């Protein structure tokens, strides 16, 4: 259950980590476009200057977004990635996290998601073919895996060449001065760019989650939900079995003079102890699994939260208590004379 929850969250956070990263206060998109995942079109050529002149704007980063086929090796392994051209290495719009290597700093350099690199069988230093141009992979990024595709980051000018969209960005990301009223700035940008849409960061993140949710997440939710339900059912069956298994011991305790209430509490405590020990072992196993996946299969990213570790034992303990209740109540009626049976 812990691993499934972490995998589910890994997929969803992969979706929002890029668009929701710090410093992206506003997103400016072509009119009618409200997300990055499924989008098209370009902003006007003067859009960047127009936004930069709005009071309160600290920085503007133009982005070019396209899908690009990346090929490598003699076998021409091929993967289509969501390519982001930005003014590297430190301009707005770069990868949220680089796990190995560095950000691209030249026209022929790119950084790609580590799951994509795993699928292509390459690492930093490898040369790949992007739409006929040879490019060197200089970094691997994290939290940039959308499951169905992954991000690649490259130089803005190289992306302009690729798209043939000179001077017309796909999006603008805007950073505001601290304390600036984002709503006022958004309104001012809208007034200057009537053919563009302006979004606050949180709204843009939600739009992207919606787009992903309409595709991959329902299936992932179903698998996770089923997995959790099966886990709870197994725990419940285990709890029932444990309680039923104590019939002989219960007869002995009744013979020795234990009260039904004390015996019921004792059996319930025994069931909970076994379930919680099992859950602890399961959490450790899930943690070991995440380490193994990290090394062997980075396509699956487990995103742990302390709340998962607390919630899982609580859910299992509750399931065990509910499942054991029936058997425990039946145990109260055990005939103590059974203690004499060999």
């Amino acid at each position, binding site marked *: 259950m812990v691993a499934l929850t972490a995998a589910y969250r890994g997929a969803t956070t992969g979706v929002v980590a890029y668009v929701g990263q710090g410093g992206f206060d506003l997103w400016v998109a072509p009119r009618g476009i409200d997300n990055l995942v499924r989008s098209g079109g370009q902003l006007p050529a003067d859009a960047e200057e127009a936004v930069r002149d709005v009071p309160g704007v600290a920085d503007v980063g133009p982005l070019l977004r396209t899908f690009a086929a990346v090929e490598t090796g003699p076998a021409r392994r091929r993967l289509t990635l969501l390519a982001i051209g930005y003014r590297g290495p430190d301009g707005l719009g770069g990868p949220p996290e680089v796990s190995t290597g560095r950000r691209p700093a030249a026209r022929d350099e790119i950084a790609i998601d580590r799951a994509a690199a795993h699928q292509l069988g390459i690492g930093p230093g490898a040369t790949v073919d992007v739409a006929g141009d040879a490019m060197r992979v200089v970094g691997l990024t994290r939290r940039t895996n959308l499951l169905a595709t992954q991000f690649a980051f490259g130089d803005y000018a190289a992306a302009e060449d690729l798209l043939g969209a000179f001077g017309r960005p796909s999006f603008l990301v805007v950073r505001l001065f601290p304390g600036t009223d984002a709503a006022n700035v958004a309104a001012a940008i809208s007034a200057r760019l009537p053919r563009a849409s302006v979004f606050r960061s949180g709204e843009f993140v939600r739009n992207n989650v919606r787009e992903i949710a309409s595709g991959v997440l329902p299936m992932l939710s179903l698998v996770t939900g089923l997995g959790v339900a099966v886990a709870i059912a197994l725990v419940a069956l285990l709890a029932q079995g444990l309680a039923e298994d104590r019939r002989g*011991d219960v007869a002995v305790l009744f*013979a*020795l*003079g234990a009260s039904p209430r004390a015996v019921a509490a004792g059996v319930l405590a025994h069931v909970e102890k076994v379930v919680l020990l099992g859950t602890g072992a399961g959490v450790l196993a899930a943690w070991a699994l995440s380490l193994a996946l990290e090394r062997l299969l980075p396509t699956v990213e487990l995103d742990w939260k302390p709340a998962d570790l607390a919630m899982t034992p609580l859910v299992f303990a509750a399931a065990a208590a509910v499942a054991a209740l029936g058997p425990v109540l039946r145990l109260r009626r055990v005939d103590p*004379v059974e*203690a*004499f049976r*060999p």
Partner: protein
Amino acid sequence: MIALELLGVSKVRGDGRMAVRALREVSLRVEPGELALLEGPSGSGKTTLLAVAAGLLRPDAGEVRIGGQALPLDDVEARRRLRARSVGFVFQRSNLLPGLGALENVLVQAALAGIEAGEAERRARELLVALGVAHLAGRLTGGLSAGEEQRFAVARGLVHAPLVVLADEPTASLDGTAGRSVVELLLALGRERGAGILVATHDHRLAPFATRRLRLADGHLEAGSGAS
């Protein structure tokens, strides 16, 4: 004070056509420090007699007294409390609780009898020394031999200084030497503590230890078998 006394006890087990008169007007007494053997073939009512004597089964007629106090037949909770304080058990198998340590199994009975934890442990360890298993006190029950387990069961049956110890075939799962040793210790430690001991058994080798032999057949105590 008489440790255990049954006065005209009758008990029918089962219902309808399956009903069996398991005990028929049985009267007996066990004095403090005495070891009474209850013999008889399988199905003669030995286990029923022990269960009635312990207050686990309510007799249909007659009276059971432990330490001179009549078992309250209509009050299950009062019978439970009296049993926890005044009756010790040694079953055919040790019936130690798995998952608990050997010493903890002994302490369970002391706790049920309401003995303070420190005093309970002192008494338990004293018994384990006498029984020769003190060095095994920290073990889980699964790591003990049948003979060792039965010694812990004897300690459990005596730790709360009961007025009466009821033992059901206590040597059945042990070889001759181990069985003899367990009964010797049960008798010696029971005597020391003034408990009356009633042992239901098929094992004729226990006869030399008995102060009295009672023979049960078809729910009757046979005449001349030492019954009071």
